[in-house]
């Protein structure tokens, strides 16, 4: 089936099998491999992207369901001149990543979360990121990074 999706602001049109998951579509058809597959059962959040500005797990959504909508992936987050998004910058500043495999999903989830709650408490951040697993960091610096990004006051909801 033919679908057309706005991905990171650019129009994408592809003919896909109906069973294609959004994450497969992004990685294989669009060549955007920044979004990761971690668990296949929507438990880990490594595949989190923004759909219509809200964070979704792209392994739990068919590409067909995104037809006509807009998706932002980790590749679309930094400014055109390469300036990191405040959440990306905060992860860098706070050592919020080690192996980097959960990072795209974690950053996208944090962007979606801060859009809903721009002034969170530490507990809010922890609960807001509960759907994203990290096996390396023990979360401490991820939470610090999200709080620091919130403090910049510069976080807006991606493609919304």
């Amino acid at each position: 089936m033919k679908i057309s999706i706005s991905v990171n602001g650019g129009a994408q049109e592809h003919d896909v099998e109906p069973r294609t998951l959004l994450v497969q579509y992004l990685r294989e058809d669009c060549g955007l491999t920044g979004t990761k597959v971690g668990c296949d059962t929507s438990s880990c959040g490594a595949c989190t992207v923004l759909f219509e500005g809200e964070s979704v797990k792209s392994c739990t959504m068919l590409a067909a369901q995104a037809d006509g909508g807009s998706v932002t992936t980790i590749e679309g987050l930094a400014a055109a001149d390469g300036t990191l998004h405040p959440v990306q910058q905060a992860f860098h500043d706070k050592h919020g990543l080690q192996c980097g495999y959960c990072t795209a999903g974690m950053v996208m989830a944090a962007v979606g979360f801060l859009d809903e709650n721009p002034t969170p408490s530490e507990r809010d951040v922890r609960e807001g990121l509960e759907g994203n697993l990290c096996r390396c960091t023990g979360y401490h610096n991820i939470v610090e990074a999200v709080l620091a990004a919130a403090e910049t006051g510069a976080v807006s909801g991606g493609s919304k």
Partner: protein
Amino acid sequence: MRETIVGPFAGKFVGHAVRRVEDPRLLTGEGRYVDDVQLSGMLHAAFVRSPHAHAHIRNIEVAAARRSPGVVDIITGAEMETLVHPFIGMLALKGLYDPRFYALSSKRVRHVGDPVAIVIAESRAQAEDAIELVEVSYETIEAVANASDALDSRKPPLWDNRSNVLFDFANTYGEVDAAFAGADRVISHQFKEQRVSNQPMETRGIVVEIDPKSSAITVHAATQSAHMLKWVLALLSDRASIPASIKTLAINRDRVTRFAKSAKAILTAKPELKEPSPMMPAMVKQFRAEPSRFVDLQRAMLGLLAKSDNDRPEVLARDIGGAFGTKGSASREDLAVYAAARKLGRSVKWIEDRNEHLMGGGHSRDEIVDISMAVRNDGTLLGMKVSLTLDQGAYPAFPFGGSMFSQIIRVMFPGPYRVPVMQFNGKVVATNKGTLVAYRGPWAVETFVRERMFDMVARELGITAAEVRLRNIVTMAELPTPMITGPMLDVRMSAHRTLVDAIAIADYDNWPAAQLAARANGKILGLGIATFCEAAPGPPDFFEHSIPGSGALAGIEPAKIVLEADGMVAVITQQVPHGQGHETTLAQVAADQLGIPIEAIRVRYGDTKITPFAMMGTGGSRSAAMAGGVVTFAARELKERIVDIAADLMEASREDIVIEAGNVHVAGVPARGITLADIAVEARRRDQNAAPGEAIRVAQEFDGGEGGWTQATHACWVEVDLETGQVAIPRYVVVEDCGEIINPAIVDGQIRGGIAQGIGQVLYEKITYDDAGQFQTGTFMDYLIPTACEIPDIEIHHIETPSEIEANYRGVGEGGMVVAPAALTNAIENALAHLGVRISEPYLPPSKILELAGVIQTARSTAR
């Protein structure tokens, strides 16, 4: 404790929380993990796996699957045995039977998930569709579902009608019986540690790329050791008969000559390798008992010798999504995918899914330990008797698995304590479970058992947990002193200091009163402490005490450091970082030696074409000491070479040349300095033989020097809710000494990450099989990984014991995970002690807490 992360820094880099070099690409989706490799014309693999724990394979019917759309080939176990050699364990230990097995199983399956066929198709989805059409007829066999089954001689053997006890050993240190006879008390307990799993966020995976024109092989892999994977694949693939290999060699005599040359070079460089290996007697015994083992090994070795360069792969490991030990092995799947790609002459990709990774991607721990401590009434330890049973599942990890871990457990059991005598008996058993791999401190059961047991001894004797440790821990004044098992505890082994500091920070002496007061208010609180030391990398002879004969190969860390033609410096390491941040830390170390900014340094790794050979890769908390050491010394040599040229160019004496922030100048006149690019031009002018793009190349090897230990004490506070069984961790303190810290943010990150896994083990994680060996934890909804909500703030206090030793860096990768289960379990027992609770296993989900506290009846017994 909040670290400051600094940006570009002009002065000294070591000791500062420099922001990571690898972050920008990983934060923007530009990292390149194995699943991101997409090649045109690449095929996809999926495995047909056993649904049974233990069964004979009576028939495999693949005709229907072959007709499925997109299917290119299906290779069953029987065909695979014509393509590859069996895995042959290289560890020759007295009393060890190491089974041989193939990449796919052809006659018998030995665990749920055991691969029996590989399907190659145009897409992964088509490969998975075809799997459904493969019909395998199984005849089930009674399962050996756990260690007690394995010890039961009535249960069917997994391997060749042998006992399921594959390795049985005993070591006696000193007059054990006499010490026990003279003790006031002998206190005994049985501990168990459940099977858990590393579960990095990235599963295993491999892409075997075959160049369609040259047929050169590039293996893109998520591996902790690129050279290990390269040589295992080269050794075990392209099975040829011995006469065929001899014929190939007769035609290609240059391959024999080249081998002889390189062997001679190695023996000249390392004359100690000429001595007969201490492993020899055991190896000869193995071969006598099983002549076919000798034949298999000769056949594989001859095949390797007969291979042309083009028939050996180069391995390329780029970004890796965590491993924690599980990617330190070459897996059966790796070899099967490689063999399929070789057979078809086409590139093949296999990415394991999470269900496969939980089933067969690597499990760990799974021990039973019986321990007796002989003590005086004042808590003085007079001796220990330890009996270990380690359940390594069906197929031993390759090249190293449970047998090796059992030896490190033995050597490490005394930890940083005075243990005058020790008896250690060990068994490694085979069961119908997944493969046991290294997981962040694969010897960690020694710390759990010893530190739990000290608490039990303290309770029995009516003294505190702090008192019993202080009475027995080796003080700084006693150093250096050898552990009863051999390795030397050197003068920097500061476990005693970490313990004393942690006791003070925890206000330990006032704890009983605080606990009672809280209980009066209805709060059930506990405090637990645990102390350890870990070989990071350990003293020079550490490996020899664990596995005699392994030291010569294991101990060496090579590195190259190159001033490139453009004035940049390349640090080329055999380390294969997968989250630890070596691109940053090794650059920090080199930058300080050279006096240049870290932006002028590129760390190169993971590519067997350019990295120096070593089998160890990244693991065992060794990188800081080993790679940090060799990079220090190699960078220093490069600086000498740079200074030589600079002195000539600037007509100054060598002693007056300074390099600061990349400016090479005569002391006092920085304005008239030159750059490394200028040096590179001159170096290339002088050395017409310099490789393209290179100006000065330095290669060094480092044996670890004094080596050394990392040590820590953890203090953990818990609050237990006796209505819900929930355990909260209001405070967690670490006092640790890993020597000089290269990057505090990275060190703290390693400690916190390890503790999170330790907390996960105790409160959430358990790989479960039922009594018939059926696997029960196949998703992240069954195997629970802690989230941000479950991991507390962790307070870290660093100690650095002063030392004259250069590059006094030691590893911290594993310690958090090793100590946390003991500290947390001790805290929970401390909280519930007034209810008479004694805890034997670091698996304490709410149901278990309520059961221990007598709030609910004993739950149905869950199989191990």
